[in-house]
């Protein structure tokens, strides 16, 4: 069973066991976060902050929590991931979609679904039911986007998968320095915020950020370099 809807400027597809009401709850999670955080909606709290009509200090507790989370990641990635746009606007999109995916996952669990896969614009969170076929994630080939480059099998430990690149929505990544080693980076991690943030950070921060990430977090990574080389952890190596 599957279901597709549109939110946060992208398509979100949901597959697996979807009990009655599950899709509505997932859509509601995305809608609520989009209402608060979208910079494309002039009335959103995020837009009010961007226009300096609302001080961050006076913003909702949730907004401040999310900002704290993003700044925490900025510190942990030495600035390779940052919510601060060069023009001074605070853009929390880099964590908000992942937060939405995480909360939607909690909603699916709460609905009693034991086996599901949520894909929001290429960022994926899975729950693998006991005795069920594992979710196999195909990774788009950055050289030919109609083809798959490789695959990753999610499990209970590595439930989340995210890909960042400069191929589409290049404006999404605020580059630090001039590192342009990687054109596309995919990260598997235990949780979706970590996977999503670090995929973004490694595209922006290059090989140095990749090395640091692998030292600090339990990840599987495939990073596609401009030169045609690939940096891969064991999960992506052919036997």
């Amino acid at each position, binding site marked *: 069973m*599957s279901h597709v809807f549109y939110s946060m400027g992208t398509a979100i*597809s949901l597959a697996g066991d979807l009990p009655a009401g599950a899709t509505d709850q997932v859509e509601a999670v995305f809608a609520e976060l989009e209402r608060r955080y979208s910079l494309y909606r002039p009335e959103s709290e995020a837009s009010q902050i961007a226009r300096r009509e609302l001080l961050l200090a006076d913003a909702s507790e949730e907004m401040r*929590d999310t900002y704290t989370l993003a700044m*925490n990641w900025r510190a942990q990635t030495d600035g390779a991931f940052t919510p601060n746009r060069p023009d001074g606007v605070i853009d929390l999109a880099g964590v908000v979609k992942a937060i939405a995916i995480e909360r939607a996952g909690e909603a699916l669990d709460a609905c009693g679904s034991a086996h599901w896969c949520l894909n929001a614009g290429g960022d994926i969170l899975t729950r693998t039911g006991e005795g069920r076929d594992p979710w196999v*994630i195909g990774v788009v080939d950055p050289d030919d986007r109609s083809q*798959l480059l490789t695959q990753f099998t999610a499990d209970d430990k590595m439930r989340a998968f995210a890909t960042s690149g400069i191929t589409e929505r290049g404006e999404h990544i605020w580059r630090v320095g001039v590192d342009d080693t990687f054109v596309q980076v995919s990260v598997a991690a235990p949780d979706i915020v970590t996977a999503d943030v670090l995929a973004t950070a490694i595209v922006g921060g290059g090989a140095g950020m990749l090395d640091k990430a692998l030292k600090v977090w339990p990840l599987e990574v495939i990073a596609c370099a401009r030169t045609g080389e690939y940096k*891969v952890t064991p999960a*992506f190596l052919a036997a």
Partner: protein
Amino acid sequence: MSTKSKAAVLVASAGVLLAGWGIGTANGQTVTSTAGTGTTTTSTGTTATTATTGATASSTATTGATTSSTATSGTTTSSTATSGTTTSSGTTSSSSSSSSGTTYKDGTYTGTNVSERFGTVQVTVTISGGKITNVQAATTVYEQRSSQFVSRATSVLKPAVIAANSANVSTVSGATYTSQAYLSSLQSALDKAK
């Protein structure tokens, strides 16, 4: 009590737990534990304890939030929380806490889910009668995959990368696609196929 210091209490509790993790952990499990600091029914004046901790720990707690990658910062936070407890044992009565002007609103508050080197933690605090009656932390401890926590990346060319077996692929990950791009994406084809 201001929401800022309330958040500080949450983060401070998180720091305590994170420090705990560094010492001994359950692997690959989601566990729920109760933090010693926040629990009420101990001999000393807990009301004052928690209020004081919240008020004084805020700067340390912020450190925990922003530079959390080391176990050391977690330890620092935990020691601050402890010193808060010690201080308040001198204040004893619950009236002293109300005079400090920091009262909590009753309810259950859940903090941000914080990612750390050893996993993630999300702290929930229950306030009843203006006092912290319970602090719970839902933690997910990352699996320790080997004695070496570190995974290594090797440089390879395409033939050495494991190929996709399209027949088994159930979902597709690519650089964030827009709604329009989705319509021509592999994921779109997969969704139609089901």
